[in-house]
């Protein structure tokens, strides 16, 4: 995958050839040494799943839906994909107006991590 997509701390799958070495690898500075062009060798994104949402501490929002919530972030489930929503209920210096940021499709774990960070300035962490 492209190095420009990633930040240090992102979760990815680490490969040697076709063999998975680590299916929950967290990007470190050394990983950027393995760049060919802008492509990171031996690294693939992790598909976002309900299990990963639970690992991050998201909880099921309402029983009839498959939506998940963590703080102000709501993840809506589509047919075969996830959609990101940011439901702003407390206005602080970082935001203007109350309301919903929505309609961002998420395919991978690192996208969720990076979008969460870009909006909140905080890292989303694995639940202990």
């Amino acid at each position, binding site marked *: 995958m492209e190095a420009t997509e*990633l930040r240090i*701390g992102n979760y990815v799958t680490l490969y040697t050839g076709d063999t998975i070495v680590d299916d929950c690898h967290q990007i470190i*500075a050394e990983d*950027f040494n393995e*760049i060919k*062009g802008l492509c990171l060798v031996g690294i693939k994104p992790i598909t976002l799943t309900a299990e990963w949402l639970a690992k991050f501490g998201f909880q099921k929002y309402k029983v009839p839906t498959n939506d998940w919530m963590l703080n102000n972030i709501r993840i809506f489930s589509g047919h075969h994909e996830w959609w990101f929503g940011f439901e*702003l209920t407390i206005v602080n210096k970082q*935001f203007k107006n109350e309301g919903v940021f929505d309609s961002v499709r998420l395919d991978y774990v690192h*996208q969720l991590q*990076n979008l969460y960070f870009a909006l909140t300035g905080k890292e989303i962490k694995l639940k202990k």
Partner: protein
Amino acid sequence: MKASVLRIGNYVDTINRENKVHIPDGLPLKIGAIEFFKVKLYKIDEPFYAQSVYIKRSLSDIAPIPLTEEWLIKIGFKQNDLIKSEYNIGTERVAKIDHGFFFDRYHWEASKRIKYVHQLQNLYFELTGDELQIKETEKPLSETNNK
């Protein structure tokens, strides 16, 4: 700066340590690689494939670039003809409100404050998959024709 806030392609400033007062020198560069406690920095207007000359700086010697109207134009936003305090790319918008910049996009009810250029680059990339970047220097026509 913390390495974890950066992506390759982000624009940052370097801090001049030669003077008594250590402040950013106002010469923006582009992150080309992230290493242990250091980054490789390239000229901002060259494509990655053309870059052979770089400088290495410690993470403590680089600084975020404050977002300004000039930077919004540089990275591709266009000033709104009717509302001069707004800048747009497609459905994405940055508005200057009370000395701060706020980002939103079509259908959003709220907007996110943006202080630095790299923050806008990263949020825009996550939302659209496209990079906000300064137009790269193209080869002069005469050089291309001679080949």
